[in-house]
């Protein structure tokens, strides 16, 4: 097959699985787009083992990072990863509006056209982080679409399934993990809660917004590793512009006035 990967620089060991890397077509006509994929088969019996598509999030971050630093060539099943980026053939000045799920669905059909033997395998879609949006929306197209795919289910790891619940729960997570202290917690409750419930997500009370942003800065900008509370923060906090905007979808109701919140005293140099 044209995309077969026969060797990899630095791979000094023999592998007992096959792998392919290339491009899947995700659009048609003058809207043609290509997504890079990397497909590794299972070690046991690729012809009958389940097939998993793994999508990292962002939006706009690469699944190759998930392949090389998370899943690696460990094989609960054959593992197919692709980037939900578009590599447009023309360097269009404006990114065509693409509905990610539609293009991912077309790319999936392009994959099975390249590898028709795998259409019988049980198929699962996994998404991580913002992939918690990519995976269910693609799953719905696979489950309701015409393409013959033996689709069995989907999994979402540390997914962004609801902005409101993610923001609301983070304030409780932060307090009960000892990040905020009593003063901030008391002020949050006084300004963001009524006798029945609290709203840390899109409260209109100015004081509440400011206090939630103080909490936001402690979690995301004070030097903690927001991906793993008990791990060190690797290296400098060199923000990737794309990443910083990507995280902008959290606490989106308050982002506009985050700048007026003083950076906390503790910050990694």
């Amino acid at each position, binding site marked *: 097959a044209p*995309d077969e*990967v026969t060797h*990899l*620089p*630095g791979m000094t060991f023999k592998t007992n699985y096959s792998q392919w890397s290339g*491009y899947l077509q995700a659009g048609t006509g003058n809207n043609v787009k290509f997504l890079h994929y990397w497909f590794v088969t299972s070690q046991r019996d690729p012809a009958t083992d389940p097939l*998993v598509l793994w999508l990292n999030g*962002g*939006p*706009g*971050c*690469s699944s190759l*990072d*998930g392949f*090389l*630093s*998370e*899943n*690696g060539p*460990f094989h*609960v099943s054959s593992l197919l990863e692709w980037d939900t*980026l578009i*590599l447009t053939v023309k360097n269009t000045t404006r990114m065509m509006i693409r509905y990610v799920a539609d293009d991912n669905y077309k790319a999936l059909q392009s994959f099975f056209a390249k590898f028709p033997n795998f259409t019988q395998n*049980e198929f699962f879609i996994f998404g*991580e*982080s913002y992939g*918690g*949006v990519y995976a*269910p*929306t693609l799953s719905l197209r696979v489950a*309701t679409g015409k393409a013959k795919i033996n*689709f*069995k*289910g989907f*999994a979402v*790891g*540390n997914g*962004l*399934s*609801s902005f*409101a*619940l*993610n923001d609301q*729960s*983070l304030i409780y997570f932060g307090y009960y993990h000892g990040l905020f202290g009593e003063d901030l917690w008391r002020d949050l409750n006084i300004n963001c809660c009524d006798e029945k419930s609290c709203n840390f997500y899109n409260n209109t009370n100015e004081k509440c917004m400011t206090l939630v942003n103080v909490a936001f800065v402690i979690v995301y900008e004070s030097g*903690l590793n*927001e*991906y*793993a509370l008990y*791990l060190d*923060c*690797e*290296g400098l*906090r*060199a923000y*990737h512009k*794309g*990443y910083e905007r*990507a995280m902008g*979808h959290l606490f989106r109701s308050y982002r506009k006035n985050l700048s007026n919140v003083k950076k906390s005293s503790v910050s990694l140099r």
Partner: protein
Amino acid sequence: GVPPCINSTAQTNWLNRGDVRKALHIPDILPPWDICSDVVEQQYSMLYHTMKEVYLKLLSLDLRALVYNGDTDMACNFLGDQWFVEDLGFKATSRYQPWIHDDQIAGFYQQFGNITFLTVKGAGHMVPQWAPGQAFHMFQSFIENGRY
């Protein structure tokens, strides 16, 4: 730059080597690989604030779903996803209970018919990276529809 606190130097250096791009059939005309794409993120508009309706449709089609969380992550914390699954409104078909890996409690899970919510104790956002044994066990149980 990279997402904060993540060291992706190794994969960035390796993926951008000429011989690696050649072996992976990546054309020279394409830009270097980066862990996140500014261009995509800048022009990305989000259509969904919640996945609730999508999940309800998928689960009405008899598909299986697993929502799992490393429980030390703060970007997408476990509590938010636990509330999300409970908010779907399905009746619990198991109690909230521990699951075991290598004779240790690896986390907790609860099933609501075809959807399972599960935590991976002590793992962060990238569960397979920080808890590979537990992740393998969890993936295998989900894919084979076995017990956790």
